[in-house]
């Protein structure tokens, strides 16, 4: 009886591990394939005749004299000035994270310490705001921004992204602040601090783990944004993601699609590094709101 049961369980275990290997391939292989292919020419990566050309790089050998080529990267970064877009993304992401966290920590602290009903309703309203598709909000911005000359500037986009991400930031930070014991700031206020002094001297030193996690997600939301950045920025100060979308329109010319492929790899590489170093924070951030409810 025990032997039969063990056999059944080991079969189930084998199936589980096969399933996991399949999922691993499904999750990771597309990225590896695109990374490999970004060093080839279009005829190899997009080969109707023989897909193994992407592996062996026949046409790349013929056209550039080597199995790997940096032509895609050179074309995107230098010729199409992708480096400008990368700089814009850097400026925008850093600013959005900083401002968003400043506003969010103040608001989240207040929401976590308030015992009145309106705090709950505010969080619920924030949830409703979070549900609004960003493109519907952009539709509301365009006319006023044209009239008041605010369209096409990077600071406008930064402010808009901070505001759109506030609901998410508030929810995350409120849940983190609830875990900081109230006694800390209460005793500071008994000792004579104003609420803001209590926040500054007592809460700020201990809030960093939650703030770093929320900052990570704010960064991801700003870095990955497409709807807002593509509609509110002009061609000169586009960030990376809308610039890639604009490459897609020009891929009729031979070779231009490799610009898009290499810029896709360039945009994904920092995200790889981010997940590598901050995996634990990302996982804890995703589960914090959920598991504790």
């Amino acid at each position, binding site marked *: 009886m025990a032997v039969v049961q063990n056999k059944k369980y080991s079969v189930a275990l084998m199936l589980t591990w096969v399933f996991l290997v399949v999922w691993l391939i499904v999750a990771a292989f597309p990225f590896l394939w695109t990374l490999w292919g970004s060093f080839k020419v279009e005829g190899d990566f997009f*080969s109707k005749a023989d897909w193994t050309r992407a592996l062996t790089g026949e046409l790349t050998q013929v056209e550039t004299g080597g199995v790997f080529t940096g032509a895609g990267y050179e074309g995107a970064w230098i010729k199409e000035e992708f480096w400008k877009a990368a700089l814009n993304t850097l400026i925008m992401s850093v600013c959005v994270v900083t401002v968003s966290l400043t506003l969010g920590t103040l608001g989240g602290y207040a929401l976590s310490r308030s015992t009145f009903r309106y705090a709950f309703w505010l969080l619920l309203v924030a949830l409703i705001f979070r*549900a609004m598709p960003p493109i*519907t909000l952009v539709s509301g911005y365009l006319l006023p921004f044209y009239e008041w000359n605010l369209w096409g500037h990077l600071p406008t986009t930064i402010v808009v992204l901070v505001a759109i991400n506030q609901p998410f930031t508030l929810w995350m930070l409120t849940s983190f602040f609830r875990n900081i014991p109230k006694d800390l700031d209460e005793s500071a206020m008994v000792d004579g601090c104003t*609420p803001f002094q209590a926040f500054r001297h007592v809460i700020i030193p201990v809030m960093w783990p939650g703030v770093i996690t929320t900052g990570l997600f704010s960064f991801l939301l700003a870095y990955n944004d497409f709807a807002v950045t593509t509609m509110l920025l002009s061609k000169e100060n586009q960030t990376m993601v809308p610039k890639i979308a604009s490459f897609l329109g020009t891929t009729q010319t031979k070779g231009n699609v490799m610009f898009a492929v290499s810029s896709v790899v360039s945009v994904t590489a920092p995200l790889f590094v*981010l997940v590598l170093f901050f995996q634990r924070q990302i996982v804890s951030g995703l589960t914090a709101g959920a598991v504790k409810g």
Partner: protein
Amino acid sequence: MKHKTFFWFMLPSGLAMLLFIALPIISVLIQSVYAPHEQVIIEVENCGPFGCETSTAVDQDATRDLREAEPLGRFVGNNIYTDRNHLATSEVGLAWQSSTGIGDFFSKLLNLPFYGALLFTLTYTAVVTPMALIFGFVIALAVNTLPKLLKGPMIFFSLLPMIVTPLIGALILFWMIDARGVLGAFIQWVASDPNLSLKASTPLTWAMLMVYGIWSSAPFAFVVYYAGLQTVPDDTLESAMIDGATPFERIRYVVLPHLLPLTTFMALIKIMDNFRVFEPIVSFNAAAHAQSLSYFIFNDLGGETQLLSSSAATSVITIICVSILLSPVLYRTWRDFGKS
């Protein structure tokens, strides 16, 4: 916390949300009842040796002045809502009178752009949300059986489809599935049809978009369920084992009920996120076969002529749809917390 303190702490964040989320909704509502000014036509008399004749011409100066003076446009009430690109009330009425049955009526209805977009968005949300949750749960169960050393790297690779930018993740998949890509070649070989192209067929395009949706949403469900699995009470599991429950029965009667609150929370978040699907359609170049409500708005806003009023009307309808989707949750929360 005192009211005054709360107000000052909450002010910056609250002001940002008021200005850039609440006001645009009102702005969109206002814009949707105005249409752009039409061009000003004047009659011009041309007198020549053969007599005078009048012709009509566009007065560019007057048109420009009018548009600058009243940028909002002219008030048209609910004309934009009922025109062909939106609720299309007259076309729907015509289709209802002239169609031979319900199936015919629906196929006529779906030819109208707005209803086609609505159907795709609802189908996408209804398919991707449960499939991603189920898939994520199965992955979480599977990863839970791994030895400790392998769990970390497994979680790393599982997170990638979710962390990567939606536009870029969809592009990466699209280039593989394209007829000239590696997966496209594989699918053609499996189907023994060298001319099979996912780009040319509407059902296949819908399927591919939903596969992308599940691929990118499953990691979120996986991570949350995985954390939830760590909190399942051991003694309940052990007593189930002593009572002779098989692993499947244990999952069904102990684990799943314990994870139900997590499931409701995740389903809510994912329904909200899936309803605004939009970037994959741009990446897959699928606008000819599949449009979502957000893509419909994007299309009106981008392009050479910006149809602000049209996009505003679609935005209002989308916001109403989102509110309807959210209402069960809001009602339940109000009922649970509003009374206590």
